[in-house]
């Protein structure tokens, strides 16, 4: 069995047994290539009352290589307005690129993104390109 499948099976079992942190829910994990989770930002933030969905895609090299993670943008969900998030759902986060580490998990990524959003207290009126990572995620 592929390492990625074995690892995702364990993560899934762990989520079912231990649950997910507050504000994070598993939406679907029908196979070991694509999972969906929802993220709500707790406390007083510009995202109060909103629920976002994250799409995770895993290749056979997960968790050695990072999952591809983006916000779902469709009829039901939209991307949060945030300097590190593009309106099409792309996320500029170092942990999803050069600072990915195999000790991170799906839930850990959700928690990181949740706190990335939580730290955004002021809604940017424009949607600037994240300067630190523009090279990685020009769309």
């Amino acid at each position, binding site marked *: 069995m592929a390492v990625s499948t074995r690892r995702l099976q364990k993560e899934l079992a762990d989520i079912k047994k231990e649950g997910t942190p507050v504000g994070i829910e598993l939406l679907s994990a029908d196979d070991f290539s694509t999972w969906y989770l929802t993220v709500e930002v707790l406390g007083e933030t510009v995202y109060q009352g909103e629920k976002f969905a994250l799409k995770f895609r895993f290749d*056979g090299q997960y968790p050695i*290589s*990072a999952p*591809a993670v983006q916000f779902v943008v469709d009829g039901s969900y939209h991307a949060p307005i945030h300097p590190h998030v593009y309106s099409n759902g792309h*996320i500029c986060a170092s942990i999803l690129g050069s600072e990915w*580490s195999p*000790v991170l998990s799906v839930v850990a990524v959700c928690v990181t993104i949740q706190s990335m959003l939580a730290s955004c207290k002021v809604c940017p009126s424009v949607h600037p390109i994240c300067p630190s990572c523009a090279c*990685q995620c020009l769309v």
Partner: protein
Amino acid sequence: MLMKDSVEELPPAGLFDHLQAFPGDGLPMPDRPLIAPLAPMLVLREEYENGSQFFVKQIDWLMNQGWIGVRRARGDGDCFYRALAFAYVENILNSSDSLLAASSALSVLEATVPQLENVGFQRLVFEDFYDCLAGLINQIINPVNNRLLTIDLLLEAFNNPEVSNSIVVFLRLLTSAEIKTNPDYAAFLLHPETGEQMDPEGFCNNFVEAVGKEADHVQMNALATALKVNVNVAYLDGHDQHGQVSFVPFQNAPFTVIEPVNLLYRPGHYDVLDRRDADPLPPLLV
């Protein structure tokens, strides 16, 4: 492997294009073996013949000292860990008492489990990686599918990206655990570019656990200590006009039954150094 089925995809990490080329390696990076069969040092010498004569002199010096072989690791930022892991398992395999060597290596590995857990790694996060390395060492003494480990199987395993990278990751986690456990490393945790002092957590997150990040002195020392293996690194850096090569020893395992691992350093890269110039031929069928 590359999941880039449209321009909208985010690139998965671990696919690095900042890789260094070495004179004469010839093949583009992804086509080079993760760990190559043993080759004569003369092959490396030929690659430098039209380049720096200081390197050529140093290679001659090494050959005169009996270091006539080199086993190349792919230059992907994981080469130190991969080269060390391969040479470590191979030395156990070639040990005169491989039963003793393998058993003692396995007991060292078992003892790292609580150390990994103590620094906060979930078992879920490391056990598959652990199993890859422990499984290979175990196969030296216990047949898997009726086969004991051979050099051919070892090369095959290390060139299977899944197995090979899992072992690299395990060694990275082990290195990280050692650095976080032992306060003696704290003074040496410097940012490789800025030289700023870093805390163990930040240093390990960025420069130890992350795949593709090259190892420096601290990581090498920590890993040699955690694995209880002695390591000698020959620095082929073109610095000595008379061609002498300095060997830096990482001797933290006075009682080990496993032969030291010998690595060859060229700026930014590690390979395995050997006193043989080719892998042994498989035994004739009985």
